């Protein structure tokens, strides 16, 4: 097997000169050697001449001439030559010769099947992954990008809040204590950032750099108008597609062109997204919130079980959005009137979404990405601490399957809690408040309702979600000769 088709990536830290010189040197040397080459430049202009999945799959070898970190997951199983841009500029021919030797070495050992077969397998997996990626193009890919940037914020913030509760559920209210510091880091900062990060990186995935500002600003507004992560998703998509549209369609005279990226695009996109979040999203959100609160108040005279079902559905619907807040503030408000059953129902219903999803990652691991499985581990802690946000990474990644599942589990939990007449006198804290005497009226029954809701959530989500791994395996079998 001789080297015929090469792909290469060049990248340097400033991205002004070396990236392009290395690219040109490789192209020139390959041309002289009669080898076809495609060089992707990752410079300050952004990635150009991008290598597609098919081109990556069809290449005999890869040269990475970079002084920065280049993501190589497109090239799994291919012989890769690593070099600096300086090496490529000074001696591109030697790098190409080295790639040729690697290709020959891989081809010369077909009998010693193991490595070659493995390379083939890896290549077909890579091809399958690539084709799966292209199928996931569009909104789903953008959503996943936002979610994966958001997860660390949810995890860090949630665990820090839980830790502050470990000092006692009111400990954080005392200024200057460690508990107050933990709460400040977790609740007021990490949790304040995660919706903007979600929105920002959805928009970044859509429109590249111009999307980040409108996405993040819109995301922060989503939290301020009380629209929660669903509002953040709206901000991300509106900001991203708006920025993309502007960059693609607006052509200014040359003299003004320089103003596009630094002034016009960020200003206009942020303004439009901001106004959309305040007037188009914010106003209805307020109306939904007050309308639902009134609705719950009207129900409080009727059936306790129905009230429980409704509160449960609401708690799990948007986790921090207007619907969830209406249920939560309704229950907290009743504490002042010495009515304690809705509080118990609401807290249980807020604990089962992360707990149920954590359980589901164990029961049906094939239906979750590895990133989600890791998030599942922390979701246990967050669920136990009544930090419903622990479920958001899962819900944001696959809203139409996950949200109905967690709503089912939460509704059943809340209805059971109401049916048993369990009373809770603390407005938050999760398991941390349960050992405190007289906070909860019937601890064993309360634990049972939470366990039931957790199991129901896990069962429904495992049923509804589609496997993550299987399509990959099918495609790999269907395209055995992809490499």
């Amino acid at each position, binding site marked *: 097997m001789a080297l015929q088709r090469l792909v290469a990536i060049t990248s340097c830290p400033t991205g*002004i*000169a070396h*990236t*392009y*010189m290395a*690219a040109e040197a490789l192209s020139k040397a390959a041309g002289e050697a009669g080898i076809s080459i495609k060089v992707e430049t990752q410079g300050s202009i952004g990635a150009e001449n991008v290598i597609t999945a098919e081109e990556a799959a069809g290449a005999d070898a890869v040269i990475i001439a970079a002084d920065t970190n280049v993501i190589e997951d497109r090239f799994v199983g291919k012989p890769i030559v690593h070099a600096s841009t300086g090496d490529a500029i000074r001696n591109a021919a030697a790098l190409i010769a080295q790639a040729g030797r690697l290709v020959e070495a891989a081809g010369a050992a077909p009998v010693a099947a193991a490595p070659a077969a493995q390379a083939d397998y890896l290549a077909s997996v890579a091809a399958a992954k690539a084709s799966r990626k292209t199928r996931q193009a569009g909104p789903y890919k953008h959503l996943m990008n936002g979610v994966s940037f958001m997860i660390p914020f949810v995890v860090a913030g949630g665990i820090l809040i839980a830790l502050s509760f470990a000092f006692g559920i009111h400990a954080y209210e005392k200024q200057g204590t460690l508990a107050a510091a933990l709460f400040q880091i977790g609740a007021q900062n990490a949790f304040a950032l995660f919706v903007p990060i979600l929105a920002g990186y959805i928009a970044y995935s859509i429109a590249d750099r111009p999307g980040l500002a409108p996405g993040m600003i819109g995301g922060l507004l989503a939290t301020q108008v009380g629209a929660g992560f669903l509002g953040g998703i709206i901000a991300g998509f509106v900001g991203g597609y708006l920025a993309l549209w502007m960059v693609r369609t607006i052509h200014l005279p040359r003299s003004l062109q*320089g103003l596009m990226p630094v002034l016009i695009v960020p200003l206009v996109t942020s303004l439009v997204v901001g106004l959309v979040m305040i007037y188009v999203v914010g106003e209805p959100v307020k109306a939904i919130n007050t309308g639902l609160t009134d609705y719950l108040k009207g129900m409080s005279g009727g059936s306790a079980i129905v009230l429980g079902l409704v509160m449960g559905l609401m708690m799990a619907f948007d986790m921090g959005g207007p619907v969830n807040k209406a249920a939560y503030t309704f229950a907290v408000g009743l504490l002042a009137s010495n009515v304690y059953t809705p509080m118990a129902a609401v807290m249980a219903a807020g604990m089962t979404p992360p707990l149920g999803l954590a359980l589901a990652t164990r029961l049906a691991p094939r239906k979750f990405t590895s990133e989600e499985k890791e998030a599942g581990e922390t979701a246990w802690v967050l669920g136990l601490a009544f930090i419903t946000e622990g479920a958001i990474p899962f819900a944001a990644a696959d809203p139409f399957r996950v949200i109905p599942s967690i709503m089912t589990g939460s509704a059943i939990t809340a209805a059971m809690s109401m049916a048993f007449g369990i009373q809770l006198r603390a407005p938050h804290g999760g398991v941390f408040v349960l050992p405190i005497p007289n906070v909860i009226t019937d601890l064993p029954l309360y634990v049972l309702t939470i366990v039931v809701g957790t199991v129901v959530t896990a069962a429904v989500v495992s049923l509804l979600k589609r496997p993550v791994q299987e399509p990959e395996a099918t495609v790999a079998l269907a395209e055995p000769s992809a490499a």
Partner: protein
Amino acid sequence: MPATTVRDLIGPDSIVLELGSSARDEAILELSQCLQHLGAVDDARAVTDAALAREALGSTNIGMGVAIPHAKSDHVGRAALAFGRRRAGVSWPGEAVADAGAGPDAEREMHSVDLVFLIASPEHASDDHLRVLAALARALIHEDFRTALRTSPTAGAVLELLERRLTVTA
């Protein structure tokens, strides 16, 4: 529709056919002063310092007798390019590795250059001049381009050469 053209960045007054200085720092200062006369930068000394700070991170002597110092500074009003030649060479510490490619460049000493492009960018530059610089970087790889730079008789001829070879077709 390229936003920035070659002529937006460089003109006959920022092309020096024979630099006066044989030392790197002075050569950069000489080119910075050209840009100051043109009004592209307001403090040649500060721009030189910025370029030298960049050199300290890693030499921009890219071999083949070429150095491309770059300065990003608040003292740069608009993105600009200056070009200088010195037949006898400007001493310019390069990277340690020097297993040099083929051609007459191989004989050239690794610590000396005869072609210098100074790139000056404002601190908060828009990106559109980068395409021209990318095209310049690509062109420098080709020996015929370097030879033409070395042998162009006038600043006008250098400018024409740059325009011909760096026209961005994006």
